[in-house]
């Protein structure tokens, strides 16, 4: 059953100083099934982040329909309270809050009892290897650790859907690989629906059950299902990578 339905979605921005209009999303249509991990790939600036913002309900689409778990995220903003979590490209931690307080901010907003907030935040941070850094301020943590706190912050509220916006893109490869592995384990064990936006094809293949290739402006160029067996086979990964690259190049 589709938990996210995107139907003829368009987003056009008017430039601030001129009357020129810029199309960020052009007639986007696809579905995402429950418990599915979908990678969205496309060139930098193709409207992937705009799509995620619309998906989160932070921006209004110009036309078309987007339904998440039965409701429109922008119009029924509060209906999706606690149902979606997002990990951004930058960690976006609040610098005045310690790691544990950053991790539990979503739980505070959702008014969980204080002891439950601490319990859950501690659990998630510990699962992500930060048990010894609960009371550290963001300025005392490395980039990878900060991103783990951001991941814990999104997972703490136990959302049905988790969105990742190039979440591991600015980390070094070793840290990024470790985090991707941790993330996949957590998503599979908790049976969440995940939308993973990236411009790195290898990352998209490694994570996704399905890959949606975006053109520029954002429209679906291809939908590719990833057979789990190919994830261990470098030659098959390479072949799929080339296939996606060709689609992007043609666009």
């Amino acid at each position, binding site marked *: 059953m589709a938990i996210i339905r995107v139907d003829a979605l368009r987003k056009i921005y008017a430039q601030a100083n001129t009357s020129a209009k810029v199309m960020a999303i052009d007639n986007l249509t696809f579905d995402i099934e429950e418990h599915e991990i979908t990678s969205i790939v496309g060139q930098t600036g193709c409207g992937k982040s705009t799509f995620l*913002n619309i998906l*989160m*309900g*932070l921006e209004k689409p110009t036309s078309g329909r987007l339904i998440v778990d039965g409701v429109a995220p922008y119009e029924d*903003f*509060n209906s*999706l*309270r*606690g149902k*979606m*979590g*997002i990990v*951004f490209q*930058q960690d*976006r931690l*609040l*610098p*005045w*809050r310690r790691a544990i307080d950053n991790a539990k*901010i*979503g739980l*505070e*907003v*959702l008014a969980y009892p204080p002891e439950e907030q601490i319990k859950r935040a501690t659990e998630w941070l510990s699962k992500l290897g930060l048990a010894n850094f609960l009371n550290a*301020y*963001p*300025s005392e943590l490395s980039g990878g650790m900060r991103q783990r706190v951001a991941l814990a912050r999104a997972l703490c*509220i136990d959302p049905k859907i988790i969105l990742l916006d190039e979440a591991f893109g600015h980390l070094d490869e070793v840290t990024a690989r470790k985090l991707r592995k941790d993330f996949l384990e957590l998503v599979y064990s908790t049976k969440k629906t995940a939308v993973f936006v990236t411009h790195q094809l290898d990352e998209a293949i490694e994570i996704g059950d399905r890959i949606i290739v975006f053109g520029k402006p954002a429209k679906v160029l291809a939908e590719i299902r990833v057979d789990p067996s190919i994830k261990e086979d470098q030659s098959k990964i390479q072949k799929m990578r080339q296939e996606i690259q060709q689609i992007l190049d043609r666009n």
Partner: protein
Amino acid sequence: MSKPSEEEWSKTESLASRTWSRIKIGKEAIISLIIFGVAWQIVSFFTPSYIVPGWQVIFGKMLTLQPNQIYVTVGRVILSLVVSFALGVLGAVIMYLSKKLENYISPLVKLIMAVPVICWILFAVLWFSAVEFRIFFILVIVCCPVFLIDILDALKGVPKDLRDMILSFRPTKTQYIRKLLLPAIVPAVLTSWKINLSLAIRVVTIAELVGAVSGIGFALNIAQANFSVAEVFAWTIVLIIILLAAQVPVSWVESKALRWRI
């Protein structure tokens, strides 16, 4: 009452040391102050005491100053700053929430800030016969716009990234303000308090000098009329001490609220 644990003691100590580190005077500053003090004393040997009195004369005079005048001035500054801050926060929040209101209020604030302080003092003397209200008006009209502009700028300066992050959890308006906006503007608020403390003490002195019958400014006026240079210097030292002492609680709050910056 239970004794504080070792950990609590060390926390208290580290807080005290952070507060001190923010206000302490460096070695170079102490040396330059000593050089200044010695030079002043040497000059005082060769000039009449009604031009450059020696330190012993100035400190002797300090012992005879009326403390009531200090309490009056400090009371006026504190009351006016608290009211200015409350009005500044209110104005900033209103302007932040409504662009339309900001467009109306902003030119007025700029106009108020463009009027020289001495003009406000003269207006107050001409408009209001009640001395206390006169001083209160001058301080509020000078300090409130500074709070307002600083806080409005800080509110506008909260990064969109952080705003989107908190909005992704779909907070209520109160949660949005309490969990993001208020903590985010704390550094700007503290800086604004520091600026306004110094501004208010300078302004209140001039206001009392021109339009009051009590307070340090008034006492300075009397000292000047009596040609008591030593008393003028004694009051000046008192004003400097008040200003430095006023920074201590702000620095303490700063070291407590902004420890994440260290």
